[in-house]
């Protein structure tokens, strides 16, 4: 069913390889550009088919272009991910063993937190408990900067969250590693970190912040979709997708 690959696909793939992750609007523009550059027919709403052609050829190499939602703005992103590793060892060509251990500990903190964030203080404290070679404070700070630069983590006001690329790529690992603790969004069924929780003790469903915004948009009295209790949290605004919006 998948078409053969052409230069338009290859150019798209090369751009994905160089950038790692792009927002949906940029992906659509890139798709059009690649088709026009190589005089291939361009059908605007067939981006997913186009990507499927690439994915069918990437599959033997355990690579895929996967789609996922940003927990910050609710926008869709496309990321080129490595499917081979079932652990953080996918990063082992760039990070030392003790650095990977710290990353795992950061992930522990984020998964087990209520708000999906880990403070730099808590992460620095974790650095003292490493079983592999210890990390100094300055080394930990330098490592966190690298992780942000390499698009594994986001940082805002001293708090760290998992980046969209990280969530898309590590979803299978996180689901299996943290199967009891990981939260799942009741609306979109994906794993959730920055989310709202139903306050009723017997319910306790979780919904991503952007999914809350979309689901409850325009409703005068927001009610939990599972137990019908009043939804007590502040309903965020839906963030409109701008063209060429940066991640």
């Amino acid at each position, binding site marked *: 069913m998948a078409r053969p*690959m052409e*230069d338009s696909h*290859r*150019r798209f*793939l*090369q*751009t994905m*390889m*160089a*950038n790692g992750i*792009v927002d949906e609007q*940029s992906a659509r*523009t*890139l798709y059009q*550009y690649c088709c026009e*550059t190589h005089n291939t027919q361009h059908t605007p709403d067939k981006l997913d088919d186009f990507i499927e052609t*690439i994915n069918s*050829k*990437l599959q*033997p*190499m*355990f690579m895929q272009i996967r789609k996922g939602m940003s927990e910050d703005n609710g926008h869709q992103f496309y990321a080129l991910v490595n499917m*081979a590793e079932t652990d953080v060892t996918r990063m082992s*060509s760039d990070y030392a063993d003790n650095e990977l251990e710290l990353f795992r500990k950061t992930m522990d903190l984020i998964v087990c937190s209520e708000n999906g964030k880990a403070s730099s203080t808590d992460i620095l404290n974790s650095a003292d408990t490493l079983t592999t070679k210890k990390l100094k404070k300055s080394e930990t700070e330098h490592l966190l900067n690298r992780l942000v630069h390499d698009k594994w983590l986001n940082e805002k006001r001293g708090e760290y969250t998992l980046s969209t690329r990280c969530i898309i790529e590590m979803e299978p690992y996180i689901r299996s590693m943290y199967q009891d603790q990981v939260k799942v969004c009741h609306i979109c069924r994906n794993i959730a970190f920055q989310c709202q929780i139903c306050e009723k003790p017997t319910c306790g469903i979780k919904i991503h912040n952007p999914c809350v915004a979309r689901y409850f948009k325009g409703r005068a009295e927001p009610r939990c979709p599972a137990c019908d209790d009043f939804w007590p949290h502040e309903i965020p605004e839906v963030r409109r997708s701008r063209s*060429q919006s940066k991640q």
Partner: protein
Amino acid sequence: MLRHHQAPEQRSSSGGRVTVSKSRRIHQSRNDSEKEAVQHPELLPEQETVQRGLERFTPAQVDQKTAEVVQFFLVRDQKKIPVRRADLVKHVLKDYRNIYPEIMKRAARTFDQVFGLKIVEIDSKNHMYILVNKLETAEAPPITNPTNPKTGLLFVVLSLIFMKGGAVRENLIWNTLKKLRVDAGEKHEEFGDVKKAITDEFVRQRYLEYVRIPHTEPVEFEFRWGQRAEVEVSKVKILEFMGELHDQDPQSWTQQFREAHSISGSLQSAPSNR
């Protein structure tokens, strides 16, 4: 005594041929080897090795190994580190080393068909490879590849070497950069440790060669274009850039113009900005 199927004279330097010097055919008895030679006299010993080797593995296994080679190349190339054949054999191929030519052939096909890249041997003595873009650099892409800030610095150095005929004493590089307000001795805002970038990073990435000038006392070094620069960077584009910079016709530099448009000058298939 094991009979070696690869007679020394057949160990050619053409890239991609099996030149496993220790052809320890552990899995093969001497009788089998002789029988094989009798049954397929038309096959060269090297092809025979590959043929027999392929029979030992399932198609799925060979595909899997090819995929691992592709990934190995991609990871290394992302950091601009050339891939050494010896590393490939030691870390990836292992038991599959006898069918190395077949795996490389399939990997090259994958790079071509899926990624639009090609494997280029930049050092035929040490068997080192890099990936080069087959697609032309396009005009105004909507998403630009994130550029390394040091690319500008590299380009200036490469231009200088090219305009000076292919080799430049290192002092000339430092002095020219100084005139451009880039002091190699100090930490630069954008380029960081300039001296390290040029003498270490660019050399490791094979963009530059840092060669000792013989019979110099104290020792002096000169810079030349590295193998990666030869295949990746367009001399035509450099000359055009020089032309714009000095408001001159590129053809006014007759020697450089001739070199840029010669066969060796157009060694690279597509000016790459990967």
